[in-house]
């Protein structure tokens, strides 16, 4: 999109996203468009990673942003940054969709192939800085394999921690500590306060 302002990089735009979200709460369409442009690649990318189906991901992304539009007034800055807020909404909706497909017995047929090719040029290089992606990749690499596997199964495959423990034949306490320690490792590596 040509509207992207190169001076507002995601890491530094928390204050901007805050202000935008307050304007979205007053049903400011322009602010909503800017909020969308600053978060869309992260939201769509996460939803696509969980759902793997571009069409369903588009629908779910649309639902996420319509929820942003309707519930921006309910955003509580004390509970986290606007980015974490919208990513939490997105993850929740994607996981709900995966679970409803699973319960309808459709996951095998539609998710069987389990691969989505994302051409490099679709990655939002303008919004997500390459050095940030590199840093995240390095931090993910710094986890132990069992920690990374737990987070992958729970966060991207939409499994509950009980299902993760069944899948990995490990007890619940072990799975919970792997998840917790994995996230703590990431948090420290990424310098999240």
């Amino acid at each position, binding site marked *: *999109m040509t509207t992207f302002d190169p001076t507002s990089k995601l890491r530094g735009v928390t204050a901007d996203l805050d202000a935008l979200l307050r304007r979205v709460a007053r*049903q400011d*369409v322009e602010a*909503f*468009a800017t909020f*969308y*442009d600053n978060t*869309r*690649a*992260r*939201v*769509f*990318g*996460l939803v696509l*990673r969980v759902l793997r189906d*571009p069409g369903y991901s*588009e629908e779910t*992304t*649309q639902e996420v*942003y*319509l929820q942003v*539009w309707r519930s921006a007034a309910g955003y509580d800055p004390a*509970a*986290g*940054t606007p980015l*974490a807020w919208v*990513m*939490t909404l997105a*993850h*929740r909706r994607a*996981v709900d969709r995966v*679970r409803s497909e699973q319960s309808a017995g459709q996951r095998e047929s539609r998710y069987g192939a389990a691969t989505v090719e994302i051409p490099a040029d*679709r*990655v*939002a290089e303008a*919004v997500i*800085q390459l050095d*940030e*992606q590199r840093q*995240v*990749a390095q*931090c*993910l690499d710094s986890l132990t394999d069992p920690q990374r596997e737990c*987070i992958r199964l*729970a*966060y991207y495959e*939409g*499994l*509950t*921690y009980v299902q993760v423990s069944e899948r990995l034949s490990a007890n619940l*306490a072990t799975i*919970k500590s792997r*998840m*917790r320690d994995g*996230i703590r490792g*990431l*948090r420290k590596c*990424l310098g*999240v*306060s």
Partner: protein
Amino acid sequence: MTEPDDLLTLATPYALHAMPQSDIDDVDRLLAQAPTSVAAAFAEEVRAVRETMAMVSASTAAEPPGHLRDRLLAAVDGRTVVELRPRSTRGRTIVFAVAAALAIGVGAAGIGFAIRPVPKPTAAEQIFAAPDVRTVSGDIPTGGTATVVFSRERNAGVLVMNNVAPPKPGTVYQMWLFGANGPESAGTMDTAAVAPSTTAVLPDLGDSKTLAFTVEPSGGSTAPTTPVFAALPLV
């Protein structure tokens, strides 16, 4: 999970949505009764997990299709953008049943709708039942026919396409309602949507005088980018 320590071990799976809804409800109930310090520690853990995963989302970033932005802005701006989808077989049957009734009605006014098959009127039935219902039909140059049954009073129409060839890969058919303010998109049909017989409801005719069709890139366009290849006058 009634002990505070046990509760805290659930903060990470809770923050990652790695629990069924029933467990989340249980945790919420326990948190409401837990000591403030435990609830605060839980909330802090959840916050930290979610901030961390927000950072991690850089690694899965992917651009959504451009039309999603247009659709969202149109939706929040109060305008209506309608995705045309093929109706169920049942809907199609109703359309043709009522269309048949209409044909009878031409010769024997008033008796046609006695055979209306379902008690709860669908959008299509309401259109067919409108006193000012009209039908326009035309051949699509590349084959097949398009028919619109519409009512100004209902401000809606039903489009039926028969034996229309699907659009080429990477393109869609886009419907436009031409009114005083120029063309307004009435939705798109991709290859999957164009069945041998396709029915779609046009819920907002406005002051449009023509329903026109163009070929557009996948996902549709905000305004026609190719010449109209078929048009039906809505008069």
